[in-house]
């Protein structure tokens, strides 16, 4: 964001709504995410023209059309690669990748991990509904084992990805999880992701009312959610509800225990800035694969040099040492001879 200009006008949410009719199924979680995103963009403080949304294929990937910024609705799974070329060559842009669990983790898994590993200055929003929506309801790389769908009538045999674990395994500097229905939390995570220099990865639990309705219901039901959500706040104790908390196990793994049993002093405090990704990874395994206690918030927020900065530095260094390239000199380099 260092080279991204600041807007000199103050935008309203409506400034980011395009004139295109939004066409998602009624009740789709994408509406809530779009509204939160449109509501957040004014506070991003970046000129509209310096924002680019790049998406792949899938329901979520229609996102760019609904925003009055620059955008590219590209091809299946390749948005991180396209965004890499854009961000690496244009450090003045705020680049957002919109993808889904099929797009980003299946066909585009390779590009995603490499963009995160390189720390390209992009923000990846992965809408996870644990199902293939656009192709009408096949199991996805995040579907639970045994999932019965059209392509898995006897239950899916696949072991699912945990997207947060995957992103941390690729050593992403910023990794967070949030939920489509919690606009305040979602907006807070977007804000932090945008503030982060380099690649940020945000998993957004998103409901598909047609093919996987209520997949995240336990996390949304006001009566139940507080006993399941582990809200990650830097410096605060890691508590699930009031009476359970996260403790360190014998081998560095994390577990959830009754506070009354283990004592308050054993409950860990969240540290999102730990350089070593091991702790954040252990946190990401807590809910896997059930939903008994689901960490939401920022798992990791660690700064390291971004790809576009490093690339620009090399160009600058080459020019400082060797001077700006001069074409005639280049063509005539090496052994030459002259014929009169």
């Amino acid at each position, binding site marked *: 964001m260092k080279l991204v200009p600041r807007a000199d006008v103050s935008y309203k949410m409506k400034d980011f709504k395009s004139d295109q009719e939004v066409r998602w199924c009624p009740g789709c979680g994408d509406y809530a995410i779009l509204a939160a995103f449109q509501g957040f963009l004014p506070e991003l403080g970046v000129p509209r*023209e310096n924002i680019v949304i790049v998406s792949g294929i899938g329901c979520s990937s229609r996102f760019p059309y609904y925003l009055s910024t620059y955008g*590219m*609705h590209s091809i299946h799974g390749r948005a991180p690669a396209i965004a890499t070329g854009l961000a690496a060559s244009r450090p003045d842009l705020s680049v957002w990748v919109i993808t889904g669990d099929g797009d980003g983790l299946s066909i585009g898994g390779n590009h995603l991990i490499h963009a995160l590993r390189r720390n390209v200055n992009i923000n990846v929003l992965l809408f996870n509904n644990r199902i293939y929506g656009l192709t009408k309801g096949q199991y996805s790389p995040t579907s639970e084992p045994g999932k019965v769908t059209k392509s898995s009538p006897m239950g899916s045999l696949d072991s699912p990805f945990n997207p947060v674990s995957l992103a941390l395994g690729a050593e992403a500097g910023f990794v967070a999880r949030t939920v489509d229905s919690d606009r305040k939390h979602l907006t807070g995570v977007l804000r932090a992701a945008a503030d982060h220099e380099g690649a940020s990865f945000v998993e957004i639990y998103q409901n598909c009312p047609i093919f996987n309705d209520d997949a995240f219901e336990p996390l949304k039901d006001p009566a139940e959610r507080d006993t399941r959500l582990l809200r990650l706040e830097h410096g605060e104790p890691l508590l699930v509800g009031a009476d359970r908390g996260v403790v360190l196990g014998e081998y560095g793994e994390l577990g959830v225990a009754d506070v009354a049993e283990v004592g308050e002093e054993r409950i860990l405090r969240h540290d999102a800035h730990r350089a070593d990704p091991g702790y954040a990874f252990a946190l990401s395994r807590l809910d896997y694969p059930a939903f008994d206690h689901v960490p939401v918030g920022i798992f990791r927020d660690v700064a390291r040099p971004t790809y576009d900065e490093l690339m620009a530095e090399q160009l600058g260094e080459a020019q400082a040492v060797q001077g700006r390239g001069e*074409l005639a000199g280049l063509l005539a380099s090496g052994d030459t001879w002259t014929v009169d």
Partner: protein
Amino acid sequence: MTKQVRQLDRVIIRFAGDSGDGMQLTGDRFTQETASFGNDLSTLPNFPAEIRAPAGTLPGVSSFQLHFADHDIMTPGDAPDVLVAMNPAALKANVDDLPDGAVVIVNTDEFTKRNLAKVGYGGDPVEDGSLSRLKVSPVPLTSMTVKALEDFDISKKDAQRAKNMFALGLLSWMYNRPTEGTHGFLKSKFAQKPEILAANLAAFQAGWNFGETTEDFAVSYEVKPARLAPGTYRNITGNVAISYGLIAGARLSGLPLFLGSYPITPASDILHELSKHKRFGVRTFQAEDEIAGVGAALGASFGGSLGVTTTSGPGMVLKAETLGLAVMTELPLIVIDVQRAGPSTGMPTKTEQADLLMAMFGRNGESPLPVLAPRSPSDCFDIAIEATRIAVTYRTPVIVLSDGYLANGSEPWRIPDVGGLPDLSVEFTTAPNGPDGGFLPYHRDPETLARPWAVPGTPGLEHRIGGIEKSSGSGDISYSPANHDLMVRTRQAKVDGIARDIPPLEVDDPTGDARVLVLGWGGTYGSIGAAVRRVRRAGGHVAQAHLRHLSPFPANLGEVLRAYDRVLVPEINLGQLALLLRGRFLVDVIGYTKVRGLPFKAEELAGVLQEVIDRGE
């Protein structure tokens, strides 16, 4: 002892040895010496895909052929006049290419029972008379090198390794090559290893002195400099020429160059070369795969760079989906496919020109794009600039079909005057073009049919593009049947219209009474040209034309084809251009095809041409 110097007008030398013997380096140095002497030249490196096949075996043989002359030549030559064979495998792999009376210098130290047996020689061919049709010079290259270096503080292995410099020294003496360049080269290569440097210089000198003093070589040869057009020259390979052309194209268009690429033989050297030129503002991105390479290039193009991706056949296949997106989004993009023998992995280090139909049609839907092919290593420079021109003018991906032979082969290149290169400057769209002050991303230039290139960061022109069909003008998603029909036809018309903007196909028909036309494309230009000369020298009449633009074809191509009784189309594939010509022009062209991983031989093509001529008489 004064030795005789004999004048020759041209020589073909082939260095052959084990993959570890440094034959490519030796050949390259001899080439540079020859270039700086002022001969015209053409080279053909030929090496295995394995980094180090087992020593002394046939699959491990690496060779480098150089043709140099006192006049302009077009090919690396059909058959070597001189073979340097560093071991029995090198002899066995190459001896059948030698004409009677050719000179063979063999490194006798390597002709041991074991090495001979390894390649199936029952006895020693150097001694058993089986090479009597050749002039064999047995030279104990390894032991003489080791002996020459015995006072140096280096290992025996390092001393043995310098035998290629001994061989280079000997050949440099034989052909009166200037040696300063090789001295300079060794000094910079071994700047950090003074002892190895001294040993290599000594080995080189020892080889030279051996030629000068031994009675085995009573004659040395001289090939006078060629009478080339005045100018400053350098030797250049196709891959370096493409790299320079891309840098030049970026400069001329005023765009930053962005290369997204994944290493693949024989295209990798373009990535290597461009990576060296960061001071030109060149961004090189070694992607995680071919798809990411082209994707990043397209992303950079969207952002206002000259996006380029480089690859070879199997990688090209993976890029197909993104090429479709580039066709649909109508952004400039340059795709270099350095063709190699296929299908699948094929023969990675061997040449072919069999990706033409893939370049033309290898995408889903009606997906037209311009296709160009350079005809010689130095033409790679001009083709890269032409690809830039077309890509930025028409907002389209452009495929350049180079090949392994052009990529690694080299020839003298007259360095162009930078001031004479075309102005390709691009103006991004910065103002609204819609009736109500809005922006229409698919509103076209009536001349070129190109759509505006408005890059992110431009206020007021925010818009969305993508792979889904867009409404003409507004760029909104459209499933309208009429709109799709219009857009498909318009994209085709845009590419077809480029024909108005490229030079007509030139036909070389000096007497004007040829009845037979030979038409080629890409890297076969040299072989065809040399064959045409042979036929003409023998009194035959033949016209020659060579395509550099394959999509669209030059506007006069149909007329040219119909002007001759017979059209011969030689290709290193099974007749891909011939298929296109028949389909497009209903002309029954005669295909001549060969897929051996090697360029055509001029003599062979001349024979085929003569046959086609004779058929009509």
